[in-house]
């Protein structure tokens, strides 16, 4: 589905850190879509400039954490003359329910967009209840 709406610029959001890092470099929040089907929860994150070797996703204590690192060595020798956005690594985490089969999470990365499919555990799938 392509809407013919004109695209608007979304200001890149910065991660609000609980702890300060020693290096004051900025980290950005990837724009994310999350949707649920009967089978799985799917998380789609936009991280332009991140290839599939530079991204990591982990689940610990029901927290899904995604980190993406850009290869900024590509900018070596480039002198900025006019800019409208800044660049940096990406990070985001979500609280997920324990009804996810954590061992079966699948990830895919294409055109700077990461898709994570988190399958639901058998007991968490919806059941139709028949009225007797």
């Amino acid at each position, binding site marked *: *589905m*392509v*809407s*013919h*709406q*004109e*695209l*608007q*610029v*979304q200001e890149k959001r910065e991660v609000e850190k609980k702890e300060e890092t020693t*290096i*004051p*470099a*900025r980290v950005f929040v990837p*724009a*994310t*879509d*999350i*949707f*649920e*089907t009967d089978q799985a*929860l*799917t998380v*789609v994150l*936009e*991280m*332009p*400039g*991140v*290839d599939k070797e530079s991204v990591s996703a982990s689940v610990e204590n029901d927290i899904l954490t995604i980190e993406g690192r850009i290869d*900024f*060595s590509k*900018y*070596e*020798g*480039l*002198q*900025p*003359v*006019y*800019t*409208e*956005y*800044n*660049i*940096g*690594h990406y990070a985001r985490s979500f609280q997920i329910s324990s009804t996810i089969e954590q061992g079966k999470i699948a990830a895919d990365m*294409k*055109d*700077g*967009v990461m898709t994570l499919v988190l399958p639901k555990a058998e007991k968490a799938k919806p059941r139709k209840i028949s009225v007797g």
Partner: protein
Amino acid sequence: MIPSFGDPFEALFAMQRALDARLASDWMGRGTAGTGAYPPINIFQKEDDLVVILELPGIAKKDLEIQAKENTIRISGRKAINYDERASMHRRERVSGVFDRTVSVPIQIDPNGIKAEYRDGVLAIFIPRAEGEKPRTIPIK
């Protein structure tokens, strides 16, 4: 100029500062930039030439079009997001639609020498400066 890349953490911070310092600078001249239009652009100088970089995550290469005429570059395309219609949305932050942006750079360029590369959701357009525009060193007699 972005300093040395010896320390990667310091280098990233230095680059972020360098990008901030040029935020909406007047290099483009008046009214040609279309600031605020999608997609946002960054323009760099590499020796005599220009490199324009845009973030276009999730756009198929075939849905991107780049045209060049005189000193104007036009970048247009469409971004499609397809999800299962039966899915229930929890969060919707990504946007889809069409875009069309024209950028006029304040130098003479060589439209035939323009090269573009799209990788990992980032479009880089390499724009060579026109031969007649390149600075020449004038020997002193």
